[in-house]
Protein backbone atom coordinates (compact mmCIF):
# COMPACT_ATOMS: atom_id res chain seq x y z
CA UNK A 1 0.00 0.00 0.00
CA UNK A 2 1.29 3.43 -0.99
CA UNK A 3 0.34 6.65 0.71
CA UNK A 4 -0.71 9.59 -1.45
CA UNK A 5 2.62 11.30 -1.27
CA UNK A 6 4.47 8.11 -2.12
CA UNK A 7 3.50 8.23 -5.80
CA UNK A 8 7.14 8.63 -6.96
CA UNK A 9 8.05 5.48 -5.04
CA UNK A 10 5.09 3.63 -6.44
CA UNK A 11 6.17 4.52 -9.96
CA UNK A 12 9.76 3.50 -9.36
CA UNK A 13 8.66 0.22 -7.78
CA UNK A 14 6.49 -0.49 -10.80
CA UNK A 15 9.37 0.16 -13.16
CA UNK A 16 11.74 -2.00 -11.15
CA UNK A 17 9.20 -4.81 -11.03
CA UNK A 18 8.73 -4.54 -14.80
CA UNK A 19 12.43 -4.72 -15.49
CA UNK A 20 12.87 -7.57 -13.07
CA UNK A 21 10.08 -9.47 -14.74
CA UNK A 22 11.65 -8.91 -18.16
CA UNK A 23 15.12 -9.97 -17.08
CA UNK A 24 13.98 -12.91 -14.94
CA UNK A 25 15.05 -16.28 -16.25
CA UNK A 26 17.69 -14.77 -18.50
CA UNK A 27 20.32 -15.90 -16.03
CA UNK A 28 22.25 -12.71 -16.64
CA UNK A 29 24.14 -10.96 -13.83
CA UNK A 30 22.77 -7.98 -11.92
CA UNK A 31 21.03 -5.61 -14.29
CA UNK A 32 22.74 -2.20 -14.05
CA UNK A 33 19.50 -0.47 -15.02
CA UNK A 34 17.66 -2.08 -12.08
CA UNK A 35 20.50 -1.23 -9.75
CA UNK A 36 20.37 2.35 -10.82
CA UNK A 37 16.66 2.52 -10.33
CA UNK A 38 16.95 0.96 -6.92
CA UNK A 39 19.52 3.53 -5.92
CA UNK A 40 17.21 6.20 -7.26
CA UNK A 41 14.31 4.73 -5.28
CA UNK A 42 16.38 4.68 -2.11
CA UNK A 43 17.37 8.30 -2.60
CA UNK A 44 13.80 9.45 -3.32
CA UNK A 45 12.42 7.52 -0.38
CA UNK A 46 14.93 9.00 1.98
CA UNK A 47 14.27 12.43 0.61
CA UNK A 48 10.50 12.10 0.83
CA UNK A 49 10.61 10.88 4.42
CA UNK A 50 13.06 13.52 5.50
CA UNK A 51 10.60 16.21 4.47
CA UNK A 52 7.29 14.76 5.61
CA UNK A 53 4.71 17.37 6.43
CA UNK A 54 2.90 16.90 9.75
CA UNK A 55 -0.16 15.63 7.90
CA UNK A 56 1.92 13.14 5.93
CA UNK A 57 3.45 12.04 9.22
CA UNK A 58 -0.06 11.41 10.54
CA UNK A 59 -0.66 9.14 7.57
CA UNK A 60 2.54 7.24 8.22
CA UNK A 61 1.75 6.97 11.93
CA UNK A 62 -1.61 5.45 11.02
CA UNK A 63 -0.27 3.26 8.21
CA UNK A 64 -2.11 -0.07 8.25
CA UNK A 65 1.17 -1.95 7.95
CA UNK A 66 2.92 -0.05 10.72
CA UNK A 67 4.14 -2.39 13.48
CA UNK A 68 1.56 -2.81 16.25
CA UNK A 69 2.14 -3.63 19.87
CA UNK A 70 2.07 -7.38 19.35
CA UNK A 71 4.67 -6.93 16.60
CA UNK A 72 6.87 -4.98 18.97
CA UNK A 73 6.45 -7.63 21.62
CA UNK A 74 7.40 -10.37 19.17
CA UNK A 75 10.33 -8.32 17.89
CA UNK A 76 11.69 -7.09 21.20
CA UNK A 77 10.91 -9.63 23.89
CA UNK A 78 12.44 -13.01 24.45
CA UNK A 79 9.50 -13.69 26.74
CA UNK A 80 6.08 -12.13 27.27
CA UNK A 81 3.52 -13.42 29.73
CA UNK A 82 0.27 -11.60 29.24
CA UNK A 83 -1.67 -10.84 32.39
CA UNK A 84 -5.36 -10.23 32.11
CA UNK A 85 -8.08 -8.21 33.75
CA UNK A 86 -8.69 -5.18 35.92
CA UNK A 87 -10.04 -7.23 38.86
CA UNK A 88 -13.21 -5.19 38.71
CA UNK A 89 -15.15 -5.60 35.53
CA UNK A 90 -13.42 -6.94 32.45
CA UNK A 91 -10.31 -7.77 30.52
CA UNK A 92 -10.10 -4.95 28.00
CA UNK A 93 -8.07 -5.88 24.95
CA UNK A 94 -7.54 -2.28 23.87
CA UNK A 95 -4.71 -2.14 26.37
CA UNK A 96 -2.71 -5.27 27.06
CA UNK A 97 0.17 -5.95 29.36
CA UNK A 98 2.30 -8.48 31.10
CA UNK A 99 5.72 -9.54 32.23
CA UNK A 100 8.30 -9.20 29.51
CA UNK A 101 11.98 -9.82 29.05
CA UNK A 102 14.06 -7.66 26.74
CA UNK A 103 17.64 -8.86 26.59
CA UNK A 104 18.51 -9.32 30.24
CA UNK A 105 15.88 -6.89 31.51
CA UNK A 106 12.71 -8.11 33.17
CA UNK A 107 9.94 -5.57 33.11
CA UNK A 108 6.22 -4.88 32.94
CA UNK A 109 5.19 -4.09 29.40
CA UNK A 110 1.88 -2.31 28.82
CA UNK A 111 0.47 -0.77 25.70
CA UNK A 112 -2.40 0.01 23.40
CA UNK A 113 -3.21 -2.79 21.01
CA UNK A 114 -4.67 -1.98 17.63
CA UNK A 115 -5.77 -4.70 15.27
CA UNK A 116 -5.09 -5.45 11.63
CA UNK A 117 -7.92 -7.79 10.78
CA UNK A 118 -11.60 -7.11 11.35
CA UNK A 119 -11.75 -9.64 14.18
CA UNK A 120 -8.68 -8.21 15.82
CA UNK A 121 -10.15 -4.75 15.62
CA UNK A 122 -13.43 -5.91 17.04
CA UNK A 123 -11.62 -7.50 19.94
CA UNK A 124 -9.33 -4.59 20.74
CA UNK A 125 -11.74 -1.88 19.62
CA UNK A 126 -9.20 -0.31 17.24
CA UNK A 127 -6.92 0.40 20.15
CA UNK A 128 -9.48 2.60 21.86
CA UNK A 129 -9.45 1.39 25.44
CA UNK A 130 -12.33 1.49 27.89
CA UNK A 131 -11.95 2.32 31.58
CA UNK A 132 -11.13 -1.33 32.25
CA UNK A 133 -8.08 -1.04 30.01
CA UNK A 134 -6.71 1.87 32.02
CA UNK A 135 -7.53 0.11 35.27
CA UNK A 136 -5.80 -3.05 34.13
CA UNK A 137 -2.77 -0.96 33.22
CA UNK A 138 -2.79 0.56 36.70
CA UNK A 139 -3.07 -2.83 38.36
CA UNK A 140 -0.08 -4.06 36.39
CA UNK A 141 1.93 -0.95 37.20
CA UNK A 142 1.29 -1.50 40.90
CA UNK A 143 2.38 -5.09 40.50
CA UNK A 144 5.57 -3.88 38.84
CA UNK A 145 6.09 -1.45 41.70
CA UNK A 146 5.72 -4.24 44.23
CA UNK A 147 8.34 -6.35 42.50
CA UNK A 148 10.59 -3.42 41.57
CA UNK A 149 10.25 -4.01 37.87
CA UNK A 150 10.48 -1.08 35.47
CA UNK A 151 7.34 -0.29 33.51
CA UNK A 152 7.55 0.22 29.77
CA UNK A 153 4.45 1.52 28.01
CA UNK A 154 3.81 1.63 24.28
CA UNK A 155 1.44 4.28 23.03
CA UNK A 156 -0.61 3.79 19.88
CA UNK A 157 -4.24 4.81 20.08
CA UNK A 158 -6.66 7.10 18.27
CA UNK A 159 -7.89 7.96 21.77
CA UNK A 160 -9.83 6.53 24.68
CA UNK A 161 -13.09 4.99 23.50
CA UNK A 162 -15.83 7.64 23.32
CA UNK A 163 -18.71 5.22 23.91
CA UNK A 164 -21.66 5.52 26.24
CA UNK A 165 -20.60 2.46 28.23
CA UNK A 166 -17.11 3.84 28.69
CA UNK A 167 -18.55 7.11 30.01
CA UNK A 168 -20.87 5.22 32.30
CA UNK A 169 -18.03 3.27 33.86
CA UNK A 170 -15.83 6.32 34.30
CA UNK A 171 -13.48 6.84 31.38
CA UNK A 172 -12.49 10.19 32.87
CA UNK A 173 -11.96 8.77 36.34
CA UNK A 174 -9.88 5.89 35.04
CA UNK A 175 -7.49 8.14 33.12
CA UNK A 176 -7.26 10.66 35.95
CA UNK A 177 -6.58 7.94 38.50
CA UNK A 178 -3.77 6.56 36.34
CA UNK A 179 -2.12 9.98 36.16
CA UNK A 180 -2.39 10.40 39.92
CA UNK A 181 -0.89 7.00 40.62
CA UNK A 182 1.73 7.09 37.88
CA UNK A 183 2.98 10.36 39.35
CA UNK A 184 3.82 8.60 42.59
CA UNK A 185 4.78 5.17 41.28
CA UNK A 186 8.02 4.01 42.85
CA UNK A 187 9.49 2.27 39.89
CA UNK A 188 10.85 3.63 36.61
CA UNK A 189 8.34 4.26 33.82
CA UNK A 190 9.57 4.40 30.24
CA UNK A 191 7.17 5.50 27.55
CA UNK A 192 7.49 4.88 23.83
CA UNK A 193 5.10 6.61 21.47
CA UNK A 194 5.09 4.24 18.53
CA UNK A 195 2.15 5.35 16.39
CA UNK A 196 -0.79 7.57 17.23
CA UNK A 197 -0.62 9.38 20.54
CA UNK A 198 -4.29 10.21 20.80
CA UNK A 199 -4.97 12.72 23.55
CA UNK A 200 -6.17 11.60 27.01
CA UNK A 201 -6.27 8.02 25.86
CA UNK A 202 -2.55 8.20 25.18
CA UNK A 203 -1.41 10.17 28.19
CA UNK A 204 -3.45 7.83 30.42
CA UNK A 205 -0.54 5.39 30.22
CA UNK A 206 2.03 7.99 29.17
CA UNK A 207 3.33 9.62 32.33
CA UNK A 208 6.89 8.41 32.33
CA UNK A 209 10.37 9.24 33.54
CA UNK A 210 11.52 9.22 29.97
CA UNK A 211 9.38 9.60 26.89
CA UNK A 212 10.67 8.27 23.61
CA UNK A 213 8.98 8.68 20.28
CA UNK A 214 9.43 7.04 16.92
CA UNK A 215 10.34 9.60 14.31
CA UNK A 216 7.09 9.21 12.37
CA UNK A 217 4.78 8.87 15.34
CA UNK A 218 2.45 11.71 16.31
CA UNK A 219 1.12 12.85 19.67
CA UNK A 220 -1.63 15.38 20.00
CA UNK A 221 -4.31 16.84 22.23
CA UNK A 222 -6.88 16.29 19.51
CA UNK A 223 -6.92 14.62 16.11
CA UNK A 224 -6.15 17.02 13.25
CA UNK A 225 -9.57 16.21 11.81
CA UNK A 226 -11.27 17.05 15.09
CA UNK A 227 -9.35 20.27 15.49
CA UNK A 228 -10.05 21.30 11.90
CA UNK A 229 -13.75 20.72 12.25
CA UNK A 230 -13.88 22.82 15.42
CA UNK A 231 -11.44 25.66 14.78
CA UNK A 232 -11.60 25.75 10.98
CA UNK A 233 -15.20 24.53 10.92
CA UNK A 234 -14.07 22.30 8.06
CA UNK A 235 -12.82 18.75 8.54
CA UNK A 236 -10.86 18.84 5.30
CA UNK A 237 -8.50 21.39 6.81
CA UNK A 238 -6.87 18.59 8.81
CA UNK A 239 -3.48 19.19 7.14
CA UNK A 240 -3.56 22.81 8.33
CA UNK A 241 -4.59 21.72 11.80
CA UNK A 242 -1.88 19.04 11.86
CA UNK A 243 0.59 21.74 11.07
CA UNK A 244 -0.70 24.18 13.68
CA UNK A 245 -0.97 21.56 16.44
CA UNK A 246 2.75 20.69 16.40
CA UNK A 247 2.26 16.96 16.67
CA UNK A 248 5.47 15.55 15.21
CA UNK A 249 8.32 14.07 17.20
CA UNK A 250 10.55 16.97 16.17
CA UNK A 251 8.10 19.56 17.49
CA UNK A 252 7.52 17.64 20.69
CA UNK A 253 11.22 17.41 21.32
CA UNK A 254 11.52 21.17 20.82
CA UNK A 255 8.65 21.66 23.27
CA UNK A 256 10.44 19.35 25.73
CA UNK A 257 7.40 17.14 25.94
CA UNK A 258 9.43 14.15 24.81
CA UNK A 259 13.02 13.30 25.63
CA UNK A 260 14.29 11.52 22.59
CA UNK A 261 13.40 10.60 19.06
CA UNK A 262 13.95 7.03 17.92
CA UNK A 263 14.79 7.28 14.20
CA UNK A 264 12.81 4.98 11.96
CA UNK A 265 14.45 3.36 8.94
CA UNK A 266 14.06 5.30 5.70
CA UNK A 267 10.56 4.90 4.32
CA UNK A 268 9.00 4.46 7.76
CA UNK A 269 8.64 1.70 10.30
CA UNK A 270 6.29 -0.29 8.09
CA UNK A 271 8.94 -0.67 5.37
CA UNK A 272 11.48 -2.10 7.76
CA UNK A 273 9.91 -3.50 10.92
CA UNK A 274 13.12 -5.33 11.76
CA UNK A 275 15.17 -2.14 11.61
CA UNK A 276 12.52 -0.40 13.68
CA UNK A 277 12.70 -3.09 16.36
CA UNK A 278 16.43 -2.72 16.54
CA UNK A 279 16.20 1.04 16.93
CA UNK A 280 13.56 0.75 19.65
CA UNK A 281 15.47 -1.95 21.45
CA UNK A 282 18.65 0.07 21.39
CA UNK A 283 16.93 3.12 22.84
CA UNK A 284 15.09 1.10 25.47
CA UNK A 285 18.23 -0.72 26.56
CA UNK A 286 20.05 2.53 27.03
CA UNK A 287 17.36 3.94 29.29
CA UNK A 288 16.65 0.70 31.13
CA UNK A 289 20.29 0.60 32.08
CA UNK A 290 20.16 4.24 33.08
CA UNK A 291 17.26 3.67 35.47
CA UNK A 292 18.48 0.39 36.85
CA UNK A 293 18.51 0.36 40.65
CA UNK A 294 17.47 3.99 40.90
CA UNK A 295 16.02 5.03 44.24
CA UNK A 296 12.31 4.74 43.78
CA UNK A 297 11.25 7.55 46.07
CA UNK A 298 13.53 10.07 44.42
CA UNK A 299 12.36 8.75 41.10
CA UNK A 300 8.72 9.62 41.72
CA UNK A 301 9.63 13.08 42.97
CA UNK A 302 11.70 13.66 39.85
CA UNK A 303 8.89 12.42 37.63
CA UNK A 304 6.54 14.92 39.23
CA UNK A 305 9.09 17.68 38.70
CA UNK A 306 9.52 16.67 35.07
CA UNK A 307 5.85 17.16 34.35
CA UNK A 308 5.63 20.24 36.52
CA UNK A 309 8.11 21.87 34.17
CA UNK A 310 5.94 21.31 31.12
CA UNK A 311 4.33 24.53 30.04
CA UNK A 312 6.54 26.84 32.03
CA UNK A 313 7.71 29.39 29.52
CA UNK A 314 8.10 32.50 31.56
Amino acid at each position, binding site marked *: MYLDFEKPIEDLDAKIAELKAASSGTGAGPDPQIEKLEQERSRVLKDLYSKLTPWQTVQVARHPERPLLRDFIAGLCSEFIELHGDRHFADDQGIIGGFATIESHRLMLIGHQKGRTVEENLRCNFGMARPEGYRKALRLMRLAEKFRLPVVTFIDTPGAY*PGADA*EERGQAEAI*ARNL*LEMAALRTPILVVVTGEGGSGGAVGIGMGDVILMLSNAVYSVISPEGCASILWRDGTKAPEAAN*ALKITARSLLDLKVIDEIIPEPAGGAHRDPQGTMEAVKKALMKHLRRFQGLSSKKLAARRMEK*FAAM*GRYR
Partner: protein
Amino acid sequence: MGWFTRKRKDAEQPETKEEVFIQCPACKAHIYKAEWEKNLEVCSHCNHHERMTCWERIDLLIDRGTFREINRRVTASDPLKFADAKGTYGEKIKETRQKTGLNESVVTGRGRINGIRVVLAVMDFRFFGGSLASGTGEKIYQAAAYALKHRQPFIIVCASGGARMQEGIVSLMQMPKTCAAIARLQQARIPYFSIMTDPTTGGVSASYAMVGDIHIAEPKALIGFAGRRVIEETIKQKLPDDFQTAEYLMEHGFVDLIVPRKEMKDTLHKLLKYCVAA
Protein backbone atom coordinates in the same frame (compact mmCIF):
# COMPACT_ATOMS: atom_id res chain seq x y z
CA MET B 1 -20.07 35.63 25.41
CA GLY B 2 -23.59 37.05 25.22
CA TRP B 3 -24.39 35.26 28.38
CA PHE B 4 -21.83 37.21 30.30
CA THR B 5 -23.12 40.54 29.15
CA ARG B 6 -26.62 39.45 29.95
CA LYS B 7 -25.93 39.07 33.60
CA ARG B 8 -23.61 41.95 34.39
CA LYS B 9 -24.70 43.44 37.61
CA ASP B 10 -23.34 46.91 37.24
CA ALA B 11 -25.62 48.13 34.50
CA GLU B 12 -26.68 51.64 35.42
CA GLN B 13 -28.76 52.32 32.33
CA PRO B 14 -32.50 53.00 32.39
CA GLU B 15 -34.27 49.69 32.79
CA THR B 16 -35.61 48.00 29.69
CA LYS B 17 -37.37 44.65 29.74
CA GLU B 18 -34.08 42.78 29.35
CA GLU B 19 -32.74 44.42 32.43
CA VAL B 20 -35.69 43.77 34.69
CA PHE B 21 -36.05 40.13 33.67
CA ILE B 22 -33.63 37.32 33.09
CA GLN B 23 -34.63 34.47 30.84
CA CYS B 24 -33.59 31.10 32.24
CA PRO B 25 -31.49 29.45 29.53
CA ALA B 26 -32.81 26.03 30.52
CA CYS B 27 -36.58 26.41 30.89
CA LYS B 28 -36.91 29.81 29.19
CA ALA B 29 -38.98 31.19 32.08
CA HIS B 30 -38.67 34.94 32.69
CA ILE B 31 -37.51 35.68 36.16
CA TYR B 32 -37.13 38.99 37.97
CA LYS B 33 -33.51 39.93 37.86
CA ALA B 34 -33.50 40.72 41.56
CA GLU B 35 -34.93 37.32 42.39
CA TRP B 36 -32.46 35.62 40.03
CA GLU B 37 -29.56 37.31 41.74
CA LYS B 38 -30.87 36.73 45.22
CA ASN B 39 -31.21 33.12 44.23
CA LEU B 40 -27.52 33.05 43.22
CA GLU B 41 -28.38 32.66 39.55
CA VAL B 42 -30.35 29.51 40.15
CA CYS B 43 -33.66 29.27 38.34
CA SER B 44 -36.55 29.13 40.80
CA HIS B 45 -38.63 27.28 38.21
CA CYS B 46 -36.34 24.47 37.07
CA ASN B 47 -33.38 24.60 39.47
CA HIS B 48 -31.01 25.34 36.58
CA HIS B 49 -27.69 26.50 38.01
CA GLU B 50 -26.35 29.19 35.72
CA ARG B 51 -22.61 29.39 35.15
CA MET B 52 -20.84 31.82 37.46
CA THR B 53 -17.78 33.94 37.00
CA CYS B 54 -14.85 33.05 39.18
CA TRP B 55 -15.41 36.21 41.22
CA GLU B 56 -19.03 35.39 41.88
CA ARG B 57 -17.93 31.93 42.90
CA ILE B 58 -15.30 33.28 45.25
CA ASP B 59 -17.89 35.63 46.80
CA LEU B 60 -20.14 32.65 47.23
CA LEU B 61 -17.61 30.42 48.95
CA ILE B 62 -15.01 32.54 50.69
CA ASP B 63 -15.53 34.64 53.82
CA ARG B 64 -15.85 38.29 52.89
CA GLY B 65 -12.53 40.07 52.78
CA THR B 66 -10.38 37.00 53.29
CA PHE B 67 -9.55 36.12 49.68
CA ARG B 68 -6.00 36.83 48.55
CA GLU B 69 -5.17 35.99 44.99
CA ILE B 70 -1.88 34.25 44.28
CA ASN B 71 0.04 34.04 41.01
CA ARG B 72 -2.26 36.58 39.44
CA ARG B 73 0.31 37.46 36.82
CA VAL B 74 0.62 34.02 35.32
CA THR B 75 -1.03 34.40 31.98
CA ALA B 76 -1.73 32.38 28.89
CA SER B 77 1.33 31.84 26.74
CA ASP B 78 1.47 30.67 23.17
CA PRO B 79 3.95 27.80 23.04
CA LEU B 80 2.86 26.64 19.57
CA LYS B 81 2.55 30.09 17.94
CA PHE B 82 -0.86 28.81 17.02
CA ALA B 83 -3.06 30.27 14.32
CA ASP B 84 -6.25 29.02 12.77
CA ALA B 85 -8.55 30.28 10.03
CA LYS B 86 -9.77 33.12 12.21
CA GLY B 87 -6.39 34.43 13.29
CA THR B 88 -3.66 33.92 15.81
CA TYR B 89 -4.06 32.53 19.28
CA GLY B 90 -1.87 35.35 20.55
CA GLU B 91 -4.42 37.89 19.37
CA LYS B 92 -7.26 35.92 20.88
CA ILE B 93 -5.54 35.76 24.23
CA LYS B 94 -5.22 39.53 24.19
CA GLU B 95 -8.87 40.02 23.34
CA THR B 96 -10.03 37.55 25.94
CA ARG B 97 -7.90 39.11 28.63
CA GLN B 98 -9.36 42.50 27.84
CA LYS B 99 -12.92 41.24 27.68
CA THR B 100 -12.78 39.24 30.89
CA GLY B 101 -10.18 41.05 32.92
CA LEU B 102 -8.67 37.63 33.57
CA ASN B 103 -5.17 36.41 32.73
CA GLU B 104 -6.05 32.75 32.54
CA SER B 105 -8.97 30.35 32.83
CA VAL B 106 -8.39 29.88 36.53
CA VAL B 107 -8.01 32.22 39.48
CA THR B 108 -6.13 30.89 42.49
CA GLY B 109 -5.76 32.16 45.98
CA ARG B 110 -6.18 31.58 49.66
CA GLY B 111 -9.04 32.47 51.91
CA ARG B 112 -11.35 31.18 54.59
CA ILE B 113 -14.53 29.17 54.57
CA ASN B 114 -16.46 29.96 57.74
CA GLY B 115 -13.10 30.57 59.30
CA ILE B 116 -11.26 27.50 57.99
CA ARG B 117 -8.23 28.37 55.90
CA VAL B 118 -8.23 26.91 52.42
CA VAL B 119 -6.44 27.29 49.12
CA LEU B 120 -8.84 27.69 46.25
CA ALA B 121 -8.68 27.47 42.47
CA VAL B 122 -11.73 28.60 40.55
CA MET B 123 -12.06 28.11 36.83
CA ASP B 124 -13.90 30.64 34.71
CA PHE B 125 -15.77 29.48 31.65
CA ARG B 126 -15.49 32.91 30.02
CA PHE B 127 -11.79 32.43 29.43
CA PHE B 128 -11.58 30.10 26.41
CA GLY B 129 -14.40 27.99 27.76
CA GLY B 130 -12.50 27.44 30.97
CA SER B 131 -10.04 25.37 29.02
CA LEU B 132 -6.98 23.77 30.55
CA ALA B 133 -3.80 25.24 29.11
CA SER B 134 -0.26 25.80 30.29
CA GLY B 135 -1.14 28.85 32.39
CA THR B 136 -4.08 27.02 33.96
CA GLY B 137 -1.97 24.01 34.79
CA GLU B 138 0.82 26.13 36.19
CA LYS B 139 -1.52 28.11 38.42
CA ILE B 140 -3.16 24.96 39.71
CA TYR B 141 0.21 23.36 40.28
CA GLN B 142 1.43 26.40 42.20
CA ALA B 143 -1.76 26.66 44.23
CA ALA B 144 -1.43 23.01 45.22
CA ALA B 145 2.19 23.64 46.13
CA TYR B 146 1.03 26.54 48.31
CA ALA B 147 -1.54 24.30 49.97
CA LEU B 148 1.16 21.69 50.53
CA LYS B 149 3.56 24.18 52.01
CA HIS B 150 0.98 25.63 54.38
CA ARG B 151 -0.78 22.32 54.96
CA GLN B 152 -4.14 23.79 54.06
CA PRO B 153 -6.98 22.03 52.25
CA PHE B 154 -7.12 22.55 48.50
CA ILE B 155 -10.35 23.06 46.61
CA ILE B 156 -10.79 23.36 42.86
CA VAL B 157 -14.02 24.60 41.37
CA CYS B 158 -14.05 23.08 37.89
CA ALA B 159 -15.77 24.72 34.94
CA SER B 160 -14.16 23.65 31.72
CA GLY B 161 -14.74 22.23 28.30
CA GLY B 162 -11.40 20.43 28.46
CA ALA B 163 -7.89 20.96 27.19
CA ARG B 164 -7.20 24.07 25.11
CA MET B 165 -6.52 23.05 21.54
CA GLN B 166 -4.50 26.15 20.80
CA GLU B 167 -1.73 25.01 23.10
CA GLY B 168 -1.81 21.52 21.66
CA ILE B 169 0.31 18.90 23.35
CA VAL B 170 1.34 21.38 26.04
CA SER B 171 -2.29 21.58 27.13
CA LEU B 172 -2.48 17.81 27.20
CA MET B 173 0.57 17.69 29.45
CA GLN B 174 -1.25 19.80 32.00
CA MET B 175 -3.25 16.68 32.83
CA PRO B 176 -0.29 14.73 34.25
CA LYS B 177 1.13 17.98 35.63
CA THR B 178 -1.92 18.84 37.70
CA CYS B 179 -2.31 15.22 38.78
CA ALA B 180 1.28 15.31 40.01
CA ALA B 181 0.31 18.31 42.10
CA ILE B 182 -2.62 16.41 43.58
CA ALA B 183 -0.43 13.34 44.14
CA ARG B 184 1.88 15.41 46.28
CA LEU B 185 -1.07 16.56 48.40
CA GLN B 186 -2.23 12.96 48.64
CA GLN B 187 1.13 11.83 49.96
CA ALA B 188 1.08 14.59 52.55
CA ARG B 189 -2.51 13.74 53.61
CA ILE B 190 -3.76 17.18 52.65
CA PRO B 191 -7.45 17.24 51.78
CA TYR B 192 -8.34 17.95 48.19
CA PHE B 193 -11.95 18.54 47.14
CA SER B 194 -13.14 18.76 43.57
CA ILE B 195 -16.26 20.77 42.86
CA MET B 196 -17.68 20.05 39.43
CA THR B 197 -19.85 22.75 37.96
CA ASP B 198 -21.35 23.02 34.52
CA PRO B 199 -19.45 21.95 32.44
CA THR B 200 -16.63 19.70 33.64
CA THR B 201 -15.55 17.71 30.63
CA GLY B 202 -12.63 16.43 28.56
CA GLY B 203 -9.13 16.79 29.90
CA VAL B 204 -10.27 18.44 33.11
CA SER B 205 -12.66 15.63 33.96
CA ALA B 206 -9.87 13.20 33.11
CA SER B 207 -7.41 14.82 35.48
CA TYR B 208 -7.82 16.85 38.66
CA ALA B 209 -11.60 16.94 38.63
CA MET B 210 -11.84 13.17 39.15
CA VAL B 211 -9.19 12.49 41.78
CA GLY B 212 -10.57 14.37 44.73
CA ASP B 213 -10.94 13.02 48.22
CA ILE B 214 -14.47 14.30 47.91
CA HIS B 215 -16.35 14.97 44.68
CA ILE B 216 -19.07 17.56 44.86
CA ALA B 217 -21.24 18.53 41.92
CA GLU B 218 -23.77 21.24 41.32
CA PRO B 219 -27.21 19.98 40.34
CA LYS B 220 -27.55 19.05 36.67
CA ALA B 221 -23.97 20.02 35.85
CA LEU B 222 -22.65 18.42 32.66
CA ILE B 223 -19.78 16.11 33.59
CA GLY B 224 -18.08 13.70 31.25
CA PHE B 225 -15.09 12.74 29.19
CA ALA B 226 -16.18 12.69 25.56
CA GLY B 227 -18.67 15.09 24.02
CA ARG B 228 -22.26 14.03 23.52
CA ARG B 229 -22.07 14.43 19.74
CA VAL B 230 -18.92 12.36 19.44
CA ILE B 231 -20.48 9.60 21.53
CA GLU B 232 -23.68 9.64 19.54
CA GLU B 233 -21.69 9.39 16.33
CA THR B 234 -19.65 6.54 17.77
CA ILE B 235 -22.50 4.42 19.04
CA LYS B 236 -24.99 5.55 16.39
CA GLN B 237 -27.66 6.11 19.01
CA LYS B 238 -29.25 9.05 20.71
CA LEU B 239 -28.23 9.44 24.31
CA PRO B 240 -30.79 9.88 27.08
CA ASP B 241 -31.33 13.42 28.37
CA ASP B 242 -29.78 12.75 31.77
CA PHE B 243 -26.59 11.33 30.27
CA GLN B 244 -23.49 12.96 31.79
CA THR B 245 -25.48 14.98 34.31
CA ALA B 246 -24.29 15.27 37.88
CA GLU B 247 -27.16 13.01 38.89
CA TYR B 248 -26.12 10.39 36.37
CA LEU B 249 -22.53 10.55 37.56
CA MET B 250 -23.65 10.11 41.14
CA GLU B 251 -25.73 7.08 40.25
CA HIS B 252 -22.68 5.58 38.59
CA GLY B 253 -20.49 6.14 41.58
CA PHE B 254 -18.34 9.13 40.62
CA VAL B 255 -19.84 11.93 42.69
CA ASP B 256 -20.12 11.96 46.48
CA LEU B 257 -22.55 14.78 46.88
CA ILE B 258 -24.77 16.95 44.75
CA VAL B 259 -25.05 20.26 46.51
CA PRO B 260 -27.32 23.16 45.55
CA ARG B 261 -25.48 26.42 45.24
CA LYS B 262 -27.11 27.90 48.32
CA GLU B 263 -25.76 25.14 50.53
CA MET B 264 -22.34 24.86 48.94
CA LYS B 265 -20.37 26.93 51.40
CA ASP B 266 -21.88 25.38 54.50
CA THR B 267 -21.46 21.91 53.10
CA LEU B 268 -17.81 22.59 52.37
CA HIS B 269 -17.36 23.85 55.88
CA LYS B 270 -18.99 20.76 57.34
CA LEU B 271 -16.86 18.46 55.21
CA LEU B 272 -13.66 20.33 55.97
CA LYS B 273 -14.15 19.77 59.68
CA TYR B 274 -13.73 16.02 59.12
CA CYS B 275 -10.57 16.43 57.11
CA VAL B 276 -8.67 19.07 59.02
CA ALA B 277 -7.10 18.26 62.36
CA ALA B 278 -8.74 20.42 65.03
